[in-house]
């Protein structure tokens, strides 16, 4: 289990390969990568604020929950904060299991909980000014299925 909260950009390919290299015998790997959308060129940057300390605690708790619910060989969460440019990776989740259904379910679960229960706040900085990204009702609703 690997959990990283960092400001620096990360290398998606290298992280994926490193995750896979560390596996022993699990045949199914699912990854999710979240990227900064440029909203048709109107976004110049995204600023991500977080709550140091609580962020790590909250993500660790979510990962423990995923480990308890599904048969996972491994899981990884990388989430950035600070100022990010268009098309940069924001975060990445990876899960590995013997059966693909476990890897898929755990990755979706981790994403749903990261969206609404890990203390990050996104601010979009664009030509038209800055705006805090509003939480979506659909993200809160997504939690009810687990």
């Amino acid at each position: 289990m690997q959990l990283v909260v960092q400001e620096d950009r990360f290398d998606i390919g290298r992280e994926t390969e490193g995750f896979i290299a560390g596996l022993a015998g699990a045949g199914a790997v699912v990854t999710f990568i979240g990227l900064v959308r440029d909203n048709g060129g109107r976004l110049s940057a995204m600023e991500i604020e977080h709550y140091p300390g609580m962020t790590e605690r909250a993500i660790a708790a979510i990962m423990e929950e995923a480990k308890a619910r599904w048969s996972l060989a491994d899981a990884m969460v990388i989430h950035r904060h600070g100022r990010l440019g268009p098309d940069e990776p924001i975060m990445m989740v990876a899960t590995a299991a013997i059966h693909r259904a476990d890897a898929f379910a755990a990755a979706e679960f981790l994403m749903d909980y990261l969206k609404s229960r890990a203390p990050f706040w996104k601010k979009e900085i664009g030509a038209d000014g800055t705006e805090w990204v509003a939480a979506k009702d659909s993200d809160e609703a997504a939690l009810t299925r687990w």
Partner: protein
Amino acid sequence: MKIDVLYFAWVRERIGLPREKVETQAETVADLIAELCAREERYAYAFADLPALRVALDQELADFAAPLAGVREVAFFPPMTGG
């Protein structure tokens, strides 16, 4: 008692600072919010729409009725938008 109070995202921007130490006898989160709102306009502005706010006590999500006894750190922020 003295409590660390933290603010994030637009709550931080409205109040104008990321954290402060608050001397309070408030028994619950709601009491603490009432005390802060009575202090200055910027607090009343930040806490105007409570359903749009979340609170964490010692880095665990809680609700506004939660007691503050033994709590060292209270954080106020809007719904999270990670991922």
